């Protein structure tokens, strides 16, 4: 029999992917008939490193889990740590934290809009959207001191205050982005080429979304009203009535495809602008750190025992952190769950039956972040068995012994 299917490997290093992951597709003509997704190429053992450091160091380590949402992980971390340690951040700090997180959502969503345009081969749009993204990055640099990795949060507050000039700059940027999102709606949502390329591509039904545990804009585009800011409000979100942005509220019908995801993301930028406007107008006065002295903070952590789970709605979905403190100045257990982990699950079902040209869109539409989702690496032996703890430990000891012998 003649060979009818071909095997296409994409990744771990591939020009269409910005981060390492492997998608193995079997195609019959143009149709994909079998898919396998392999992950775990970017596992760095960050959680283990965090369990060896003190809590302040770990907080800044958590900022390095992800390169784009550099405030989502610290946000989830501080919320969890504050819950576990019984510290409450002053109201002003809570509002400042919310403003930073929403500014980050704006830049992350605009980044995604550029990336999806790029994956479709629409590079003019990519550069145009990223030109618009510069403004929020400059604003973040002005407020926090750096474009990415803002180093703004601290357990029990925020580290930098918002001054009059910062607030002026924020208001300026809000005006700019109201115009920019209007423009983006016209260019993305009413463009026939964009619509033809995304309508009914990467279509997730509500059932599949629930079954695969999808989170964030992907789940909302499938019509599920879920948003951590709405379901478990924290910080300033508790004062603002945040409602999940779902397509049925915007246009009245749900497709759950890449077009709906685009729509949800653009409308979420507007929602963020509303939230920032509210926070800036109602910014409470007062201090910004519950325990301004870091030495005192570490001493308190050493005295306190407790554990907690906390979540933050990152631009890509919910980030969940678990922390346990028992008598050390840092966490004795730290566990991170990132949204891309759930969302990557959707690749398999979505790619089967799709066409080869849709692979980039399906891969990009969830805005995957590999370094976030690689929390575990599974090592296999030659005959396909998973290596357990005892074997790995034995191998470590053998290796140490070998190095020791060589050094002698």
């Amino acid at each position: 029999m003649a060979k009818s299917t071909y095997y296409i490997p994409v990744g771990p290093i591939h020009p269409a992917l910005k981060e390492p992951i492997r998608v193995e597709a079997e195609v019959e003509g143009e149709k994909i008939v079998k898919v396998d997704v392999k992950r775990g190429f970017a596992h760095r053992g960050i959680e283990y490193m965090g369990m060896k450091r003190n809590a302040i160091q770990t907080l800044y380590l958590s900022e390095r889990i992800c390169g784009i949402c550099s405030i989502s992980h610290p946000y989830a971390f501080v919320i969890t740590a504050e819950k576990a340690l019984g510290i409450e951040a002053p109201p002003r700090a809570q509002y400042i934290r919310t403003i930073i997180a929403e500014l980050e959502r704006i830049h992350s969503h605009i980044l995604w809009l550029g990336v999806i345009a790029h994956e479709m081969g629409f590079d003019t749009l990519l550069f145009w959207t990223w030109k618009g993204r510069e403004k929020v990055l400059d604003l973040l640099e002005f407020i926090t001191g750096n474009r990415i990795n803002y180093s703004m949060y601290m357990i029990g507050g925020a580290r930098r205050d918002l001054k009059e000039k910062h607030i002026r700059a924020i208001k300026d940027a809000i005006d700019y982005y109201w115009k920019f999102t209007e423009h983006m709606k016209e260019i993305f949502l009413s463009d026939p080429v964009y619509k033809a390329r995304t309508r009914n591509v990467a279509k997730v039904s509500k059932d599949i979304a629930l079954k695969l545990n999808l989170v964030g804009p992907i789940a909302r585009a499938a019509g599920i009203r879920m948003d951590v800011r709405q379901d478990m409000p924290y910080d300033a979100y508790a004062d603002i009535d945040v409602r999940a942005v779902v397509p049925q509220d915007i246009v009245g019908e749900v497709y759950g495809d890449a077009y709906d995801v685009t729509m949800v993301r653009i409308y979420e930028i507007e929602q963020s602008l509303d939230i920032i406007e509210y926070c800036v107008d109602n910014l409470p006065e007062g201090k910004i750190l519950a325990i301004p002295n870091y030495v005192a903070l570490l001493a308190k952590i050493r005295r306190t025992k407790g554990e907690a789970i906390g979540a933050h709605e990152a631009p890509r979905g919910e980030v969940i952190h678990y922390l346990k403190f028992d008598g050390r100045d840092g966490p004795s257990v730290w566990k991170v769950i990132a949204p891309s982990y759930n969302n990557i699950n959707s690749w398999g079902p979505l790619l089967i039956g799709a066409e080869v040209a849709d692979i980039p869109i399906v891969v990009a539409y969830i805005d995957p972040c590999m370094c976030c989702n690689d929390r575990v690496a599974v090592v296999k032996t030659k005959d396909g068995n998973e290596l357990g703890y005892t074997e790995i430990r034995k191998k470590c000891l053998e290796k140490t012994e070998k190095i020791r012998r060589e050094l002698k």
Partner: protein
Amino acid sequence: MPTKVMFLILKQLLEKPFTNPFPVKHAPKNVTELIEKVQKGEVQINPPVPVPEGFRGKLHYDPERCIGCRLCIMVCPADAMEWVPELKKIRHYVSRCMFCALCVDVCPGKKFPGEEKAVKALSMSEEFLLADYDKYSDNLIEEPPEAKEKGI
């Protein structure tokens, strides 16, 4: 059928580039030649976009103000600070630093006679062009001058 995007593309064609062409407008054929020309003053370098106030750039260390309390070592997430026991001062490796400014926050600093408030030994400068071939080059290590003289 003309769409909005087509107008956008046409408009973009007429606009000036948004990016700052740093250090020169076009990638040079020969970098060494360019550097020589710049040194001779034949070519002007286009300055980078200015950084805003409060920017977190390369760490500046003033050993005179350091009291050797080691707080910066305690909080540094990247272990970029090293204790120099002979001098009771610290040495800072810029190549390890992740510019979080935690050490600046905790540094108590020292008050010289006649001054009202203590001045921190550590501060964030505006320098950000730190690329180098050697991670231990002089530009990337901040230490007390005695440490280098005595070779500690």
